[in-house]
């Protein structure tokens, strides 16, 4: 698996990616995820990474009782030795999607909100991982855990995940501390944790809880979903700005407030980034105008670039 995803990137950015606007017009979340994943697969077929998921790892001598399907017949023909071909098995990687549903995720400056985008992202990952044979679980939260579906790989489970994702977001504020604590308690088996959130909350507790999660052996990936308006603050009109979580409002003249906002926001982002780096956590920032398959690509590329394999368990 030497070539990196990096090589595939030009082809990806060349316009074959799904326009988020077009994607978001698909009402059904499951369908949306399928579109992304299938598009991704079709891209993969053209790429040199075919067979990515069933990766050869080692041989071991055949003992009586082993499944003959895994016997390397070519080796038998060549050397008359009986070896069982051992493949890297990712299907049993238990992954959990941690999705932030707090009201701040409802913000949108485009035709879709961060929540829509995040749900599609989560659905895409679910579909993708499921298609790979991984067990996928879901945990949604705002200031506390709302829905929890343990990671499974069985028929109908994906459907359940989709339904949970389609639920309307609830009230409350973004509080990462409590849900992260809960997930540590709930998920004992090591696996992958995909945290999808806008991270628009104080970062104090985040370090501790993410660190705890990482320390438990989970492979943590953070996707920060942001609206373009949040990164640029290109408002023109002086109005009252209302906090979507607390309801507090504030009279603002954007042109006057922009500089300070960008500064504070930048500080927050860099703090979050450095925090993740410190903990060895992959940190991806996605704005809602970025095609979803890029997120998928970046995810995979990042995983390869980091040189770490997902945690494996053998059958």
């Amino acid at each position, binding site marked *: 698996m030497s070539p990196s995803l990096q090589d595939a990137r030009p082809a990806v950015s060349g316009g074959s990616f799904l326009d988020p606007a077009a994607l978001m017009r698909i009402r059904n979340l499951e369908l949306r995820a399928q579109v992304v994943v299938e598009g991704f697969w079709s891209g993969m077929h053209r790429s040199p990474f075919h067979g990515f998921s069933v990766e050869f790892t080692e041989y071991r001598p055949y003992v009586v009782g082993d499944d003959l399907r895994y016997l390397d017949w070519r080796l038998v023909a060549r050397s008359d030795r009986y070896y069982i071909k051992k493949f890297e098995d990712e299907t049993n990687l238990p992954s959990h999607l941690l999705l932030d549903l707090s009201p*701040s995720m409802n913000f949108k400056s485009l035709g879709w909100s961060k929540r829509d985008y995040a749900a599609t992202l989560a659905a895409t990952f679910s579909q993708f991982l499921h298609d790979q044979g991984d067990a996928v679980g879901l945990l949604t939260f705002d200031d506390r855990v709302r829905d929890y579906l343990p990671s499974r790989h069985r028929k109908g489970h994906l459907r359940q995940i989709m339904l949970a994702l389609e639920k309307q977001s609830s009230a409350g504020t973004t509080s990462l501390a409590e849900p992260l604590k809960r997930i540590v308690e709930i998920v004992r088996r090591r696996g992958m944790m995909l945290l999808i959130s806008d991270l*628009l*909350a104080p970062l104090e507790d985040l370090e501790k809880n993410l660190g705890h999660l990482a320390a438990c052996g989970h492979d943590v990936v953070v996707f920060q979903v942001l609206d373009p308006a949040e990164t640029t603050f290109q408002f023109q009109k002086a109005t009252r*700005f209302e906090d979507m979580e607390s309801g507090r409002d504030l009279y603002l003249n954007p042109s006057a407030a922009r500089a300070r906002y960008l500064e504070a926001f930048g500080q927050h982002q860099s703090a979050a980034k450095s925090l993740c780096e410190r903990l060895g956590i992959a940190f991806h920032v996605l704005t809602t105008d970025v095609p979803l398959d890029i997120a998928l690509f970046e995810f995979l590329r990042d995983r390869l670039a980091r040189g770490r394999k997902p945690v494996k368990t053998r059958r």
Partner: protein
Amino acid sequence: MNFLAPLFLAGAAAVALPILLHLIRRTEREKTPFSSLMFLQPTPPQMTKRSRLENLFLLLLRCLVLALVAFAFSRPYLQQAITPPLQKTERVRTVVLVDTSASLRRDDLWAQAKQRAASVLRAAGAADEVALVAFDRQPRVLIDFTRWTGSASTERANLAVNLIESETPSWLSTHLGSAMMRGVELLEEKADAQLRKRLVVISDFQDGAKLDGLQGYEWPKGVEVRLEQINARNPGNAALQLGAELASGAGTTDGSIKVRVNNSADAKRDQFRIQRSDGGPGAEAYVPAGQSRVITLASGTNSLTATNGLRLSLTGDGQAFDDSLFIQTRRQETVRVLFLGNDDPKDSAGLAYYLGRAFPETRTRNVELLLRPTSVPLTAADLKDAALVIGSTRLTAGQAAWAKQALAAGVTVLLALPDSTSTEAIGTLLGRTAPNAADLTSNYSLFGRIDFQHPLFAPFADPRFSDFTRIHFWKARQLSTNGIPGARVVAAYDSGDAALMEIPAGRASLFVLTSTWTPADSQLALSSKFVPLLSGLLDYGRARQVFARQFFVGDSVPLPTNGVAGALSVVRPDGKREALAAGTPLFAGTTEPGFYRVDGLPEPLSFAVNLSPDESRTAPMAADALSNLGVPVKLVPTTLAAAPKADPAATLMTAANELEGRQKLWRWVLLAALGIVLIETWLAGRLSFGGKTA
């Protein structure tokens, strides 16, 4: 344009509010949801740009509403209609009318009236002209403008006040209408156009005041009327009034007396007692306020006679001035009507048949009809007590000569003209040649023109009784009146020819009917008018000899002149004797209620004078009684404290208040404001809806 409450105009400053709101609130009201304010700091609002003022028209409407409301609350009125209040620089011509009627005798009303009058008089400026008029039944000018302006300016008020001080309320009734008209007449008399004309009426404005004449009176422009009402401390009054029979002077058959007790509407008492002066049994009367009851007093020991009057007193009503009722009756008199002619009184085709039924007996009069056919010679004795002589023109010479004597003695003669040839008698009676007569050729005639002013027809003047069209004259004659001096056509046929004419002759009148009342000639005897006509004719002749016994204060009492030798004198109720010149036909000195006696007659004559019942109606008249008659009234409050000690500012304020109350401009302004609010609501709704869908 002036304002009653100009301070409210300051409320117009509130228009700043919508302007401010348009500057701020427009931007504040829109909220932009944002995911988190954690990176934001508040910035101060900016509103310096003019371009922030959105929806200028809406803003204009809102400002207009506020301005209009403030405008309405300041109670605007148009100045030009206001009559300028009294100013020292302006000359005013004032007529002060002071009521001196009997009702002013209540409580301290007269003192109040004098005080009011004095304050009005003393308030007059040096350049003002004032006339002072006292009125009751007649207006009496105490001071006219000439005398006022003629006296020293410092003395005028004192002079007038002294004059009013010397007045006392009379016993007369209140003729407010004629007094006010007289006041206006005085004001208009040789008036300077520069002068403001003002009529001040000081009165108790009682319900019984007569307003005759004001109806239909065109009130001159520019005359300001101020009514100063004075009120009694003890309202309410009850009074006695004679029953109809007694009022006519007739006695009662059984000696009982019927009186009506009236209680005024504002009375607080309803229990009264009636006592009689002859010691007879009195009566209790219960009369609720505003009602009247007829009380019958049983016959007393000394029942009413022609010579003795009876005085009834009412007690229990608190106002004494009208509590006495004086009753004087007259005895039944026998009068004679002579019929000259041969008609059988039982023959319904003859004239006499109807006369026998035309004079029923009444309490004051018993008519004796004497038939004098040609066979019975007439004597001078027949003239005694004769009041009326009736006959046709077919008189014998002897009858005609006797009738002429009757005329000379003052007896009325009525002749019917049965044909066009027998006019000799008329000539004889009048002492001249007989007038020509001719038959009218039409099928029938009707009364075409009737002189309702004539005493004979005056009772029929009311439209209810004035229909004579049912009386057909089948046979009528035309009698030329040419050359007969003093002949007066009382009634004429529709052809214009005289039907009934009065010709003065001797000391009486000769009436000639150019038809007869027999059914062959006319329907006159069968009509309802016949009896009253003959009765009127009877009284017409006797009016100068038969006298009423009941009068009201101020009435002129006719005095007998027949057979009176020498001068008469009248003894007034207070015992004073008033000598009258010989031949005086009327006594006008009935200035107080009571019994009067006329001395110097063969038979003593007494009559009773009472207060007019109208004067006893002391409840205040309806507030709009005068203004309904077109009088431009301004009523001054009743308490003395509010008497016109004219504070010019207060006067101006009052005038402005009234003017504003009349104009009520604020209503229209508020209505306009309401309309604008509706437009504003519609517009704002449209704008905000449009904003949302955009």
